[in-house]
């Protein structure tokens, strides 16, 4: 929507000046008009009153001679005097007369006129002319002496006239009226004359003043202001600086505005350039950071590792692009696996570089077949040698040996890892000093048993220092609660589960530290080939009893395995025992226990059509009881028939009561 066009400041000012001056002029003229009228009245009045004395003599003479035969000399003298007054005061007509109320008539005694033209008009009004006419009330009032003088308007052969009359008396009581007439035409003529002499030039002067103000304002204010706004508009719409500088025409203020605008525009140009440069630099730096972060992530091993001996899952969530956390695992050969989690002090590039160095050293010494504490000692010495910035690293190194189910570890000032299985236990022995600051430090190591199914959980303080909106730490308690509540059956791995719980706690509050976790679960796997003989169950039983799991769980596993095994023996070949056929049995322990039977017998799904309740009627008839038990005492079951083989798999998870 386009804004309504507004008047320029020059137009406005000129118009305002003109309007004000016009109003002033009108007021002045009105006042002048009334002054002229008043002037005429007062002149008339003065004449009529001052004439009294003069005419008194004449009146006596006139009365004595009974209104007739006046001395021509006196009469002429009077008339001459009247003429003199007329010309002096520009009065049309001065006359003396008497009034006869009875006949409603007046008799002119003497008249004087202004000029020749009037003289012709009033020649009939000469001395002793008797005229019948209407008498004005004011005229009579003056005649009777009730008023000193009066001004009345009359129309006669001279036109529209203003007449001022006064009564003249002599000592003898004789009286005569004196009248002075001035015509309206004279007044208007005088007014026009005055207007032409003064008003017109004044009006012209006013118009000139208005125009000059308009021109001045336009040149000095409007145009410079327009020029500035045009330049600014250009700057805004084109988004670029005009090549020519803005010149401050007009007044000093506009010069100041122009200077300010020019310097502002220069400043903006400089700022824009410097911002561009900065963002380019930042983009470059970010790109370099990202490359560095990518290289750093490349140092780390894949987040998942699994073989028949163990299962390793790791997760690193960096707070910035580059962090000082690291995790690693190395299969050392001969069933030995090294796991490490470390946290370098500080963040950013320095931390990342230090972390890379620490990682390289640890890997180097680990591959030499050293024990965890020896790796710590050598790494510590190497890091302490050239560490001018006094960076340090906390670390936990552990080696799992699946041959004897042992886990040997050494801790350099790092958060205590947990062993999960048979309860939750913090690995609080062998807590040494952090690495990188003190050379020749001795580290101890500790050895524990890690049975198949048991897990070691390593983490950095970013996990426990997860903050929520109330600025509370998740803490060791939060972590332990999460570790205790974890069930492998939930589908997520332990590290994923802990991460989810921490994220749930943080309510998406921005992470301020790296978060690194690693879990190692010891596994075992036994495969047996069994004959179709129920006595072969002893072998199954002995393998299950060897497991490092809680005793009630072993009993349940035996029961489940027995039911399925007896079932296969009884039905796979209709109760016969084929000599060349074998039953495959496999027992695998990781974070859960998996039992698998394979046979070549007739197709049979043991989990089909199991009635869940009432296996025992009044006559104690039981059927399908074994299948019911094996189904009830496992967490999950699978039946598969492929390549002419029945494959039955049973899953049992370590639940809290089993730990």
């Amino acid at each position, binding site marked *: 929507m386009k804004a309504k066009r507004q008047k320029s400041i020059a137009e406005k000012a000129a118009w305002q000046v003109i309007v004000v001056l016009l109003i002033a002029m009108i007021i002045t003229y009105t006042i002048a008009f009334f002054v002229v009228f008043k002037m005429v009245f007062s002149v008339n009045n003065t004449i009529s009153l001052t004439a009294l004395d003069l005419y008194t003599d004449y009146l006596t003479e006139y009365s004595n001679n009974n209104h007739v035969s006046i001395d021509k000399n006196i009469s002429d003298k009077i008339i001459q005097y009247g003429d003199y007054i007329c010309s002096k005061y520009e009065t049309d007509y001065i006359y003396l007369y008497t009034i006869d109320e009875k006949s409603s008539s007046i008799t002119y005694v003497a008249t004087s006129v202004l000029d020749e033209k009037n003289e012709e008009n009033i020649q009939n009004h000469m001395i002793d002319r008797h005229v019948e006419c209407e008498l004005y009330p004011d005229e009579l009032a003056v005649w009777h002496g009730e008023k000193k003088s009066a001004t009345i308007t009359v129309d006669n052969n001279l036109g529209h006239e203003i007449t001022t009359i006064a009564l003249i008396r002599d000592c003898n009581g004789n009286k005569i009226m004196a009248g002075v007439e001035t015509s309206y035409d004279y007044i208007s003529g005088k007014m026009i004359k005055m207007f032409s002499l003064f008003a017109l030039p004044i009006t012209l002067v006013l118009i000139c003043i208005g125009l000059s103000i308009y021109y001045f304002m336009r040149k000095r204010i409007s145009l410079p202001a327009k020029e500035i706004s045009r330049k600014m508009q250009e700057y805004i719409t084109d988004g670029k600086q005009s090549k020519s500088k803005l010149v401050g025409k007009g007044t000093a203020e506009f010069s100041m505005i122009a200077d300010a605008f020019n310097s502002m525009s220069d400043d903006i140009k400089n700022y824009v350039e410097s911002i561009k440069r900065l963002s380019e630099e930042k983009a470059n730096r970010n790109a370099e950071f990202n490359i560095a972060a990518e290289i750093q992530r490349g140092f780390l091993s894949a987040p998942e590792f699994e073989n028949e001996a163990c299962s390793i899952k790791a997760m690193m969530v960096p707070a910035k692009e580059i962090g000082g956390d690291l995790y690693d695992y190395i299969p050392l050969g001969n069933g030995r696996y090294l796991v490490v989690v470390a946290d370098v002090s500080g963040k950013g590039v320095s931390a990342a570089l230090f972390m890379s160095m620490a990682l390289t050293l640890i890997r180097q010494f680990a591959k030499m077949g050293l024990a965890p504490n020896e790796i710590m000692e050598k790494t510590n010495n190497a890091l302490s040698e050239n560490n001018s910035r006094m960076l340090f690293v906390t670390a936990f190194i552990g080696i799992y040996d699946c041959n004897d189910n042992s886990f040997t570890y050494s801790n350099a000032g790092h958060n205590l890892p947990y062993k999960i299985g048979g309860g939750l236990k913090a690995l609080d022995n062998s807590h040494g000093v952090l690495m990188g600051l003190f050379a020749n430090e001795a580290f101890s190591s500790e050895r524990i048993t890690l049975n198949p199914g048991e897990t070691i959980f390593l983490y950095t303080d970013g996990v426990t220092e997860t903050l929520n909106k109330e600025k509370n730490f998740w803490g060791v308690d939060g972590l332990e609660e999460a570790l205790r509540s974890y069930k492998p059956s939930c589908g997520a791995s332990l590290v994923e589960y802990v991460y989810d719980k921490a994220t749930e706690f943080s309510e998406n509050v921005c992470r301020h530290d790296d978060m690194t976790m690693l879990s190692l679960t010891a596994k075992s796997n036994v495969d047996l080939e069994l004959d179709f003989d129920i006595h072969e169950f002893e072998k199954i039983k002995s393998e299950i009893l060897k497991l490092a799991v809680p005793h009630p769980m072993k*009993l349940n596993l035996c*029961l489940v395995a027995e039911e399925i095994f007896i079932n296969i023996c009884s039905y796979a070949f209709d109760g016969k025992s084929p000599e060349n056929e074998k039953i495959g049995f496999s027992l695998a322990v990781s974070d859960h226990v998996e039992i698998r039977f394979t046979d070549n017998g007739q197709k049979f799904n043991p989990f089909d059509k199991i009635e869940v309740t009432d296996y025992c009627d009044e006559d104690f008839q*039981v059927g399908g009881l074994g299948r*019911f*038990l094996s189904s009830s005492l496992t967490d999950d079951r699978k039946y598969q028939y492929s390549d002419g083989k029945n494959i039955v798999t049973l899953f049992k998870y370590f639940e809290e009561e089993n730990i």
Partner: protein
Amino acid sequence: MTIEKKETGKEITLKLDGWLDAISAEKFTEVTEEIGEASAIILDFEKVEYISSAGLRQVVTCAKKAKDMNAEFSIIKVNKEVMSIFSLTGLDKKMSICSD
């Protein structure tokens, strides 16, 4: 599995020791079959820590035999693990089973 048979008058107590699985169930069957006449058959499960469906089936057979000869039948001193199997199958509601 070993089974110790104790007769007090017409009351027969069978003291079982070991796992009552498919293999040992056969022996248990033999012992139960030997029982000629009794007014009460008591199974002492104090030393039984394991019972499978084969074992359960023999317990049921024994209970049936007791019922046929109008003898009282009860299982005593059942431990926690075995009791949970009895509960799971609903047998604890069909016969007298107690943990002491």
